[in-house]
């Protein structure tokens, strides 16, 4: 009898303890969720407040009393936001496409072809992953300036193309494709290039998609190189555009319009993320860092 009571007491105690731990856990998670989401909430909220409303609120309100879309119109008319978008789109698409072609060819050579000096070349390629961008950007800046390619898409794109890490990822994937497929294709007389296009690329599609998305994110957010190489507004990307807007755009006081621009710039990547959530998180955990 007494024993049973004790047992019950202990069980109750553990249950209570577990509940407390669980509550604490969820409180912590919800707290950080709020910290992460709040800036997003605030930018959307601010972007739908009118100029007058925003500036008359000494204590900011957590709702917009008369929501308006006028800031979005202002964001696209007062500054060439659409142009920044188009530039970023061109930059992102071309850079990613060229990179995919270059690394597919190289990864194929490393994964399937036999040639003298292959291993040495691969080690050299890998060692380049350790070179920080900050170290090479100075000479690249001088090179592009000397070539008269400032304020051109070529100058923006060319130094941004190559990424040894993605080449490495793709080579690993290519190597997992069974060798006998290649031998069979050889017997059939299929050329290497045809084999690459018809068999390897379709089979490596998941990795190629991951690489594409990660590169797109990287391009969309790139700031330093575009800033160095463009001073003509006609070639600004969104990051430089937002900086320009901050410093000379609507005037520092028109915060709602600024926030509308921020929302417009942030939205495409959020949508991309929500659609490809698993691919992105898997790809990032395989070795991407925010650079």
């Amino acid at each position, binding site marked *: 009898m007494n024993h049973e009571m004790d047992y019950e007491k202990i069980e109750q105690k553990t249950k209570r303890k577990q509940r407390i*731990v669980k509550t604490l*856990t969820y409180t912590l*998670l919800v707290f950080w*969720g709020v910290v*992460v*989401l709040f800036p*997003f909430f*605030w*930018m959307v909220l601010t972007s739908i407040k009118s100029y007058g409303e925003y500036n008359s609120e*000494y204590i*900011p309100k957590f709702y917009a009393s008369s929501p308006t879309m006028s800031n979005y119109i202002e964001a696209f008319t007062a500054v060439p936001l659409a142009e920044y978008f188009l530039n970023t789109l061109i930059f992102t698409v071309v850079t990613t496409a060229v990179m995919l072609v*270059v*690394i597919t*060819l*190289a990864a*194929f*050579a*490393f994964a399937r*072809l036999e*040639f003298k000096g*292959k291993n040495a*070349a691969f080690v050299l*390629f890998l060692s*380049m992953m350790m070179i*920080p961008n*900050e*170290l090479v950007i*100075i*000479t*690249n*800046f001088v*090179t592009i300036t000397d070539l008269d390619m400032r304020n051109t898409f070529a100058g923006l794109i060319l130094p941004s*193309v190559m990424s*040894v890490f993605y080449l490495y990822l793709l080579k690993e994937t290519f190597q997992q494709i069974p060798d006998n497929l290649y031998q069979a294709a050889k017997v059939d007389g299929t050329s290497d290039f045809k084999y690459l296009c018809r068999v390897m690329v379709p089979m490596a599609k998941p990795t190629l998609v991951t690489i594409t998305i990660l590169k797109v*994110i990287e391009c969309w*957010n790139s*700031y*330093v190189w575009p800033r*160095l190489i463009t001073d003509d507004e006609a070639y600004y990307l*969104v*990051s430089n555009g*937002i*900086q320009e807007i*901050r*410093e000379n755009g609507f005037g520092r006081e028109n915060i709602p319009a*600024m*926030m509308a621009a921020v929302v417009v*710039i*942030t939205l495409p*990547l*959020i949508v*991309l*993320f929500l659609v490809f*959530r698993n691919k*992105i*998180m898997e790809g990032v*955990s395989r070795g*991407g*860092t*925010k650079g």
Partner: protein
Amino acid sequence: MKKKKLDLSGLKGWLYLLPAIVFLGVFMVYPLIDVFIYSLEEGYNSASQTFFGVGGYNYAYVLRDPYFLQALKNTFILVAVTVPLSTLIALLLSVALSSIEALRNLFQTVFFLPYVTNTLAVGLVFMILFQKTEYTEGLVNLLITFFGGTAVDFIDGPYWAKMFVLCLYTIWIVLPFKILILTSALLSVDQTYYNSAKVDGTSRFRTFMRITLPMISPMIFYLFITGCIGAFKAYSDAVALFGTDLNAAEMNTIVGYVYDMLYGDSGGYPSYASAAAVILFTIVLTITCINLIVSKKKVHY
């Protein structure tokens, strides 16, 4: 005949590599060599492309430049504050994430959002939250005054306040990556270890210290190193908060100093920029090496 064919196939391999080699050669290898040469050329004039001599003057100049020293100080504070703190917070959140089943996916998705946002764009939101203007004290300051503190302008105000926002924003930006890595590390720890600990009646805390922590220590260490490297290269977060004139805001970083020397109103000195970049690279390399040596003793593989 056979030999000829062999040669041809060798050539083919290099042909497939050619585009990659061209890109890497022109934009990686050549610049890497060139930056060391630049950093040693004294009195380089970018207009006439001439220089006086070879030596360490550029390094001496940079190391005496008060702007560089300011940038150095800021960068070291940033590294010392954000790397341990963000790793710790990430660990805490990851432990919480891996201990729940319901809503885990939702939380993971939300926590990852800062990774896919544009640093410069969201920096503006942080700016308006922390800034004090003539129209409003800003939301954060209202909170501070509500709890009995005095309002501070975190964007144009005192040094510590600006540093605080910079650290906070950096942590906000770097956490998603760390949480992602640590959560998957925690979830992949073999459940049988926990079960046997449970059978033995080991307390939660002890289990964590004796089993979980050693098991994931390689990942924590990996995050610490990549975190250090990343924080040493901080730049765009500072620009996002304080604008492009970081020297005036006393908020410049080493990378910012390199770019300022290269381009813009204070630019046109690729030699000084190169020297500063080489110094940065040396610091990062040294710290990474120290980390590796220390980890050999502490990390359980």
